């Protein structure tokens, strides 16, 4: 078993501008539950940017090679106590199972103009380095 970690940093305004310009983009990047959560908040873009960073951090842990990995197959879930977790579906779940990714943990944060996320996991299958 080896540890794996992924980190990502997102400029909140960039995400907001991209979503404003392309109405369909939100449904491609986020699940309906993620959108519903963010839209109840004062500045949805901040929460969506944090979720996008979290998905990218998870992708860095999953390290897909030449496999399609749609963003909606990585769902960021908020627990009642305030912590976030991740639910993998479809392609993301398959890649995780094949790579032996266990105990995927996540932390997100946002401040001023940026949102950031870190994902960590235990990986039981040896993998080649991807760069």
């Amino acid at each position, binding site marked *: 078993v080896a540890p794996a970690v992924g980190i990502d940093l997102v400029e909140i305004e960039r995400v907001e501008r*991209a979503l404003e310009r*392309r109405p*369909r983009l939100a449904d491609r990047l986020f699940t309906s539950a993620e959108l519903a959560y963010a839209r109840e908040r004062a500045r949805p873009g901040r929460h969506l940017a944090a979720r996008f960073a979290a998905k990218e951090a998870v992708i860095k842990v999953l390290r*897909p090679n*030449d496999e*399609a*990995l749609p*963003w909606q197959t990585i769902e960021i879930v908020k627990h009642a106590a305030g912590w976030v977790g991740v639910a993998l579906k479809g392609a993301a779940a398959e890649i995780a199972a094949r790579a032996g990714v266990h105990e995927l943990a996540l932390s997100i944060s946002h401040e001023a103009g940026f949102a950031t996320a870190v994902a960590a996991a235990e990986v039981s299958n040896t993998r080649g380095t991807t*760069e």
Partner: protein
Amino acid sequence: MTDEIRTIVEEHARLPQGIDELSDESDLFQAGMTSHASLSVMLALEDEFGIEFPDRMLKRNVFGSIASIRSALTELGVPVA
């Protein structure tokens, strides 16, 4: 089509070197394109060519070079001009 792709990559991939230094087969990720920049490239391609990349094409290799982008666009029915 290749000229339009090269222009979009130059504007959105945020590479340290000029697009003229890259061949159609050069690896854009090796050249410094980040995953966020590849998303910008994807969205700009969709705007330019009026297409939408389906889920099955949301993988690193599709956006890995000018040539791979060109074959993806051709597969999506964009005419080779």
